[in-house]
């Protein structure tokens, strides 16, 4: 097998914070302020963003090396910010590396987004040509594959209608159809499967499987572990900008999902006391199946543990907890005010409350919790927004190869279905 991609010591450094102010006049103002020994007029006041430190930089990729063989379908996994997207951007030549070399054999087709360059005023037909050319196809090539593209997209009837009149589903289908027929020797795909309905996703995955089967090379970044396992034989696991491990996909996915539950990097969220408070949260931890984490695999038992302190002795504090999704909607809300809850055996000044939520069937995505805490269940509660942020990963919880995806619903219950035929109903009655 020959190598078609060779990544050698790839490093990408991003400078953090505002280095220039973005306009010449402001840069001049800032310079003039410095000359007069006055403070920088463009410093943001009261902003303590850890990522806004001027002059500092982060390594999005740190000395990454690997090779990809022809015909290999390689998955790239890792948490948000691990450097997956940066790697893909460099491979697709959208940005240049800071150090290192990438050597490639054959044409790269990269799909960082579906429908790049679609123009709403143009018809479907015109957009197919334009999008094809943007992705690197020749006009003649598009013409040759045109019928196939249109058939795959299923929008034959509307091909001469401006795409602004398309439904978003049609739009995405047409866009993916163009990309799917790009026929590059190397296909780079970033999470485009997060669009469209389940049916179409299946079609896309199938198409990508075909591409890999034809001896072409596929690089696939996704948070969908099921898809990675199905599609890619091998995977690379990126962590904090470097290759943590690589090898067989199923063991990589397992190791990756596992690592998040045993990683020592997870620190509980801690909070300082504020002057006016009579009771305050010291730290919040999350546990899945009994292990501290900030990542939950679909189907795990979820609990939170809240350490608190108060200004006077209490025996039964009031505790409330709500889970918010990434749209800021509260989807679960619990409070001991509404139910009979245990007391501390004696009056205490400092303690811990464990909130066991059980198997919460949350779909994959980012969530955060709000914590309310009061001196007793009926008193005013102090509220902490975003007390803890966590992620739920898609996971084949039932071991049947089927992974619930978030566009189906907000929750996914494990359900017992009881099937009764008419005879057994009669039996029950009699």
């Amino acid at each position: 097998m020959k190598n078609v991609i060779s990544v050698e010591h790839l490093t990408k450094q991003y400078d953090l914070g505002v280095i220039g102010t973005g306009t010449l006049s402001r840069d001049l103002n800032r310079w003039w302020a410095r000359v007069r020994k006055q403070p920088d007029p463009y410093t943001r006041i009261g902003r303590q963003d850890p990522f806004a430190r001027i002059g500092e930089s982060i390594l999005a990729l740190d000395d990454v090396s690997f090779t990809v063989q022809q015909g290999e379908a390689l998955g790239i996994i890792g948490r948000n910010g691990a450097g997956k997207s940066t790697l893909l951007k460099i491979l697709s030549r959208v940005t240049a590396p800071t150090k290192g070399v990438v050597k490639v054999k054959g044409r790269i087709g990269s799909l960082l987004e579906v429908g790049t360059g679609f123009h709403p005023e143009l018809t479907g037909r015109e957009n197919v040509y334009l999008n094809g050319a943007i992705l690197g196809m020749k006009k003649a090539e598009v013409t040759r594959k045109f019928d196939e593209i249109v058939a795959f997209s299923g929008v034959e009837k509307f091909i001469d209608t401006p795409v602004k009149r398309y439904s978003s589903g049609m739009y995405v289908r047409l866009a993916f159809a163009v990309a799917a027929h790009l026929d590059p020797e190397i296909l780079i795909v970033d999470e485009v499967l997060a669009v469209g309905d389940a049916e179409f996703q299946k079609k896309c995955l199938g198409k990508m499987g075909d591409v890999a089967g034809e001896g072409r090379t596929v690089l696939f970044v996704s948070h969908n572990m099921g898809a990675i396992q199905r599609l890619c034989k091998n995977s690379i696991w990126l962590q904090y900008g470097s290759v943590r491990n690589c090898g067989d996909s199923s063991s990589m996915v397992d190791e990756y999902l596992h690592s998040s539950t045993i990683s020592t990097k997870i620190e509980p969220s801690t909070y300082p006391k504020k002057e006016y408070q009579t009771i305050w949260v010291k730290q919040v931890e999350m546990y899945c199946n009994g292990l501290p984490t900030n990542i939950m695999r679909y189907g795990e038992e979820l609990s939170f543990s809240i350490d608190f302190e108060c200004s006077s002795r209490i025996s039964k504090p009031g505790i409330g907890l709500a889970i918010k999704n990434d749209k800021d909607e509260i989807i679960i809300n619990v409070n001991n005010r509404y139910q009979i809850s245990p007391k501390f055996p004696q009056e205490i000044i400092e303690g811990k409350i464990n909130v066991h939520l059980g198997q919460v069937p949350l779909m994959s995505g980012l969530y955060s919790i709000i914590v309310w805490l009061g001196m007793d269940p009926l008193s005013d509660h102090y509220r902490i927004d975003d007390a803890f942020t966590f992620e739920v990963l898609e996971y084949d919880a039932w071991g049947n190869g089927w992974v619930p995806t978030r566009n189906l619903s907000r929750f996914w219950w494990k359900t017992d279905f009881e099937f009764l035929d008419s005879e057994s109903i009669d039996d029950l009655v009699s």
Partner: protein
Amino acid sequence: MSEKEIKSDEDWDLIITPRKKWWDLQLRDVWHYRDLIGLFVRRDFVSRYKQTILGPLWFIIQPLLTSVVFTVIFGNIAKLPTDGLPQMLFYMSGNIMWGYFSTCLTSTSTTFTANAHLFGKVYFPRLVMPVSIVISDLITFAIQFMFFLAYLLFFYLRGTEVGLTAWAFALPLLLVLMAGLGLGFGIIISSMTTKYRDLQYLVGFGVGLWMYGTPVIYPVSSIPEKWRWVADFNPVTPIIETFRKGFLGAGDASWLRLAYSAGFMLVVMLIGILVFNRVEKTFIDTV
């Protein structure tokens, strides 16, 4: 991977490195994407006409109105000379030529900022974008030029003497010079606006001023001797003068001056492409 499988560099089709060689103009790459240039031109053309009532008429109305205003203000009120030519024809010729140059410059000067989204998602030689813009603008010019010819014919039929000369055949060269100058300056500015957005405001203002330094509303022959160097230095001057000499019969046309413009254009283009290619590799990190 065994030792045997390690290949020499020649085997690779593409090598991505931190910086490209600064002298590499990458024009071959642009040529490879010529179909895309064509499709961008088509896209611009279609999207400009769809859903406008007057369609291409807009392109005629604009130079026509400007010429009328110039005729009133500069011709009748300020009484600037026009080399003995009918005022409307004189101003219109200057307007459409200058118009082509200034739209090339201003529209290519936003290449990076206006296409940041597209450039952030897919690679193609970035130079494809400004080149396609300059060609799209040529279509606008063609429409305006047809109108100008029709207007010329109208004057001719009314009995005004129209002095077409052999210089008219130089029109393609003049357009190449205009496009090259506009593109060159435009991409230099677009490369700088990735860092300094406010240069964008300077462009509109600067191009406006530049017009007054160019014989658009007055002929070169009316410039006092001591300010003549300004017009001589300005690479757009010979282009407009040659155009007037060709189609109206009065103007200061010479090959030497055109050669100066051509040299100027080549230098600006070269600098522009070099700067542009340098910025294109990482601008997406700063925009």
